[in-house]
């Protein structure tokens, strides 16, 4: 099934006899205004987890996309199992045995698990006539599905509807799909950014099972601890160049950060605090049947309040409801002690709230609009505010220079890597898109800023920058609510942490008493 390689690769100058399934040599890729990859070598051995590390915009996703055949390389050579692949395409790489687990999953939500597993290559009935007619052998499919799941240690019902699966189970299904297609190399671009701690452990278990089968895994993540824990080798990219490749056992986090950024950080999770003032927000008995119930809490100006919990604890739903995106069944909201009714996001923004969504793709970015428009769209829609800041004139006429000025300010403050403000936001790397949304969230001058996984997909250096920006806001008396599944983050930056489990508040700890163990106990509902 391997398409015949047209020629033998040139032998490596270093003559290394290492056995590589996939060997990317001197890969170069340019986009208008940026060099995304500049002569990068990257190889994958069978049965290894090779971590690809680098700051936002370093070129990791571009490398993954080139291997997957989604993006065409400008220069360099791709060698797979000893044969040069001249023209890569998504269909060809799949045929070769290269699978990509995209962050946006590609499952058919209305079909069951086993049908998704065999999508496009259903097992046909053994009866020749029925088989010819395309009748599926349900039993055989279920059997094979169970086999693969058992082998990988996945506990999912083959007959369940995909739509009812948790996010992590969907991800496992994607991985199982790759295995069912006889993948030899599996590429994972930030697979954990939407998983909770427990689910992450399960994913690591599955990855280990994959490597035991001799599958090479390429793993991209910004969580350095994970990279060290799961990786065998780590390759670091900086500004599109290959800085080095080292064995995971021979390195530590500080070394990696220095390789990635050329700098060192005194602290990755600084303790930040603001100027605590009067209480600005109180939520009383907030309830939405089946999602969250009887949630009450208060926040002061300048306070940084964390919401911890497992994925599915109802934190996102709670704040979507508070922001007017969902109708709660009961409960009251007070701002500055006054009761308020928030029926839609515009009301919430009027009352000084802002909300950064965790679902960047579906609820965040406008992929076809420019960086500038994505950044300023909320401000644009509040006419008086936007006129007073010289963004618009009468009738919503956009003041080009004012808008450019302000967005350039934010781009600099948050070090967003972008060639031009008029570029479509879809051209930015994931982490940089996240920063644009963060800028949108704080641009309105809100007094209560709600951030749902604010550092999702953001590199270690940029995280610290974001924490500093939150600190600045808190110093100005802005109340900040952070929903985060990253325990080191939430325990460091928040003054106080509320923990939720299955839609209820199960505990509250001050930063002084916060440790991962206590929080996990509340989060799993096992605290006495």
């Amino acid at each position, binding site marked *: 099934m391997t398409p015949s390689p047209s020629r033998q690769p040139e032998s490596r100058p270093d003559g290394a006899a290492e056995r590589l399934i996939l060997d990317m040599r001197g890969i170069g890729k340019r986009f208008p205004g940026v060099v995304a990859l500049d002569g990068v070598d990257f190889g994958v051995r069978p049965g290894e987890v090779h971590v690809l590390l680098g700051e936002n915009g370093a070129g990791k996703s571009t490398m993954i996309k080139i291997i997957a055949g989604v993006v065409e390389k400008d220069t360099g050579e791709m060698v797979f199992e000893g044969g040069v692949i001249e023209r890569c395409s998504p269909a060809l790489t799949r045929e070769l045995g290269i699978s990509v687990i995209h962050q946006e999953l590609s499952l058919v939500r209305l079909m069951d698990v086993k049908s998704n597993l065999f999508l496009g290559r259903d097992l046909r009935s053994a009866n020749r006539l029925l088989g010819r007619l395309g009748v599926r052998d349900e039993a055989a499919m279920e059997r094979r599905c169970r086999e693969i799941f058992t082998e990988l240690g996945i506990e999912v019902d083959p007959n369940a509807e995909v739509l009812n699966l948790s996010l992590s189970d969907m991800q496992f299904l994607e991985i199982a799909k790759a295995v069912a297609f006889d993948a030899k190399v599996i590429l994972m671009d930030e697979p954990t950014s939407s998983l909770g701690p427990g689910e992450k452990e399960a994913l690591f278990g599955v990855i280990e099972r994959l490597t035991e089968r001799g599958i090479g895994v390429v793993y991209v993540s910004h969580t350095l601890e994970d990279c060290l824990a799961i990786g065998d080798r780590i390759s670091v990219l900086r500004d599109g160049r290959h800085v080095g490749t080292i064995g995971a056992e021979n390195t530590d986090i500080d070394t990696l950060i220095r390789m990635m950024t050329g700098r060192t950080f005194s602290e990755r999770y600084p303790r930040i605090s603001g100027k605590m003032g009067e209480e600005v927000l109180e939520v009383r008995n907030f309830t939405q049947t089946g999602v969250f119930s009887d949630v009450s809490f208060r926040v002061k100006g300048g306070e940084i309040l964390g919401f911890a919990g497992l994925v599915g604890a109802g934190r996102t739903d709670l704040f979507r409801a508070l922001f007017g995106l969902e109708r709660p069944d009961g409960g009251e909201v007070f701002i500055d002690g006054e009761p308020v009714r928030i029926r839609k996001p515009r009301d919430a923004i009027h009352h000084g709230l802002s909300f950064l969504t965790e679902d960047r793709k579906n*609820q965040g970015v406008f992929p*076809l609009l420019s960086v500038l428009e994505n950044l300023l*769209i909320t401000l644009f*829609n509040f*006419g008086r505010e936007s006129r007073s800041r010289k963004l618009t004139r009468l009738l919503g006429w956009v003041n080009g220079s004012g*808008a450019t000025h302000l967005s350039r300010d934010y781009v600099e403050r948050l070090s967003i890597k972008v060639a031009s403000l008029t570029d479509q936001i879809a051209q930015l790397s994931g982490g940089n898109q996240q920063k644009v949304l963060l800028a949108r969230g704080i641009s309105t001058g809100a007094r209560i800023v709600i951030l749902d996984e604010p550092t999702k997909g953001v590199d270690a250096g940029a995280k610290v920058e974001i924490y500093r920006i939150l600190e600045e806001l808190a110093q100005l008396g802005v109340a900040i609510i952070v929903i985060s599944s990253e325990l080191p983050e939430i325990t460091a930056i928040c003054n106080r942490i509320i923990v939720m489990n299955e839609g209820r508040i199960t505990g509250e700890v001050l930063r002084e008493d916060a440790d991962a163990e206590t929080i996990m106990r509340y989060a799993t509902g096992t605290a006495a």
Partner: protein
Amino acid sequence: MSGEGKADSGRGSAAQSGGYSISSLIASGFSRYGLILALILLIVFLSITAENFFTVSNMMNILLQSSNIGIMAAGLTLVIICAEIDLSVASIQSMGAVVVALLLKEYGVPIVPAVIATLILGVILGGVSGVFVGWFAIPAFILTLAMDSLARGGALILTGEQSIFGLPEAFSVVGQGYLGPFPMAAVIMGVVFLAAHLILSRTVLGTNIYAVGGNKEAARVAGVNVFAVKLFVLVFSGFCGALAGVVMASRLMAAQAIMGMFDLMDVIAAVVIGGASLLGGEGRIIGTVIGTLIIACIRNGLNLLGIAADWQLLAVGAIIILAVLLDYVGKKRTA
């Protein structure tokens, strides 16, 4: 107004290209300049085959004939970018023509108030669609189909299948007058195109139209008043429909409920050929302008070549399929 921030945010399909290899450059070049090229080729072809085609007076004639289609296409472009559709424009056009004619002839209303009242009627009809689509989330496809039937039925009831003749002489200036070398109707079309272009490219409303069409959920989260945006595009489309009706009544100095029966086809064709995506979120007025001219040249050329109206209908259908196909191929290669 430097407009730097919004000058070219790649809202046309052309700028979507991901790769920049030679082949994709050609493909993206095709979708950017292909439309103009297609128009030029068409003009060259018709100039050779139809002897009276390439003359100044025929060119002005084409502009004149395209004016009501162009006015409606401008409105529909905004609706389609917003990921909605308006199937009622052509009937609102007929309604507008009939109403302005009745006001002038039967009720003796002076020209200016009669025209204004007609335009307001268009705004109201568009507004009704907008409220149902925007507020009650009824699919525009169904609702504007119903509105199409209402407007056409209303026009028929008002006139009882009669033609209205004998409109005041001064009224002819809208559809038959000239401003310098240009037909007044074409100038009106130009103004509507310019207004639509400025709304889309220079105002917050324009950004909102693209935002709602491209990602409605994200627009809501970002604080965009989604209802107001949808209401606006349908109101604007209704306004354009009524305006096209006034222009048509003036050009023919007569009105009849069934005139412009097949115009909806040409309007949608102009917008789609112009590159606006029926999925919403992308499209440009300049594309619609060229799309309108392409349709007008085909109609005019086929007339000069003596091809009957039923065959013209066939030709327009085939051309829409061709345009959509080319767009699809262009996108596939640049993806």
